[in-house]
């Protein structure tokens, strides 16, 4: 049932830049505690500054918070036909062009790179290009596997 799978016509779509996401110190501490990131540079300003950072450093996967908010533009669009009760997260990749630190104001451009149907399953790959002004900060690539209704 192809019409229960994500619409392949969304591949190649690029969304307008998001409103800026303000990276907060307490949000970084909260996220670090939730994933169990114990390095003191996530928690202690003196340690972070001692390593040369302007402020607390984000855990490696923190950018998922920013990316998932941007991805919502696509995955929550009813026309995209992504049924979250049928979604499995297939893969994720973070490429950091520079570390994210508290105080950053980050804008994300969401790309739908691929929507591939194969044997009743759709593989949907999105890419978030996260930047501070003209400076690239992180690229987050995520693939969801979406089962069709007969699977």
């Amino acid at each position: 049932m192809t019409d229960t799978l994500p619409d392949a016509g969304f591949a190649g779509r690029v969304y307008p830049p998001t409103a800026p996401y303000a990276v907060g110190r307490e949000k970084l501490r909260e996220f670090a505690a939730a994933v169990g990131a114990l390095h003191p540079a996530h928690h202690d300003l003196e340690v972070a500054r001692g390593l040369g950072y302007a402020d607390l450093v984000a855990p490696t996967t923190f950018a998922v918070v920013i990316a998932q908010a941007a991805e919502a533009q696509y995955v929550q669009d009813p026309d995209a036909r992504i049924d979250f009760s049928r979604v499995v997260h297939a893969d994720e990749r973070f490429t950091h062009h520079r570390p994210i630190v508290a105080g950053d104001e980050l804008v994300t451009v969401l790309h739908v790179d691929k929507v591939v149907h194969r044997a009743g399953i759709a593989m949907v790959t999105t890419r978030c290009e996260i930047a501070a002004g003209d400076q690239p900060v992180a690229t987050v690539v995520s693939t969801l596997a979406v089962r069709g209704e007969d699977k």
Partner: protein
Amino acid sequence: MTRPVLDDLAVGDVVATRTLELDRPRLVRYAGASGDFNRIHWDEAFATGVGLPNVIVHGMLTMGAAVGVVEEWAGDPGAVVDYQTRFTRPVPVPATEVVLVEVSAAVGAVDAEARTVRVDLTVTHEGAKVLGKAQAVVQL
């Protein structure tokens, strides 16, 4: 804080291990911190209703928790310049249990010119891999 010395590293060196202890409160905490409120991670009736064995751990929680050992080993979280994984197997979390996930980090490749080390993470639950091709690139 000590930093690893690139020239001292050899492929296959195990640089860190950790046992992650995951339970329902931990999943709820991650849901709140990350903004990922998918019901399959906290609502057992919903999770089993969509064919899962139970509530399952956010793949992103497992991914995020596993890389902590690499950040600590690197001595600088900002040194982890790339990190990827595939999610190969869900980790079910029964209501009152603490589920154990084993993490082992080993040197997968050393690039002397780029001054980077690829750290390969082996992440298992009950003996089976839950992450596939989990690789972190560390700039030294």
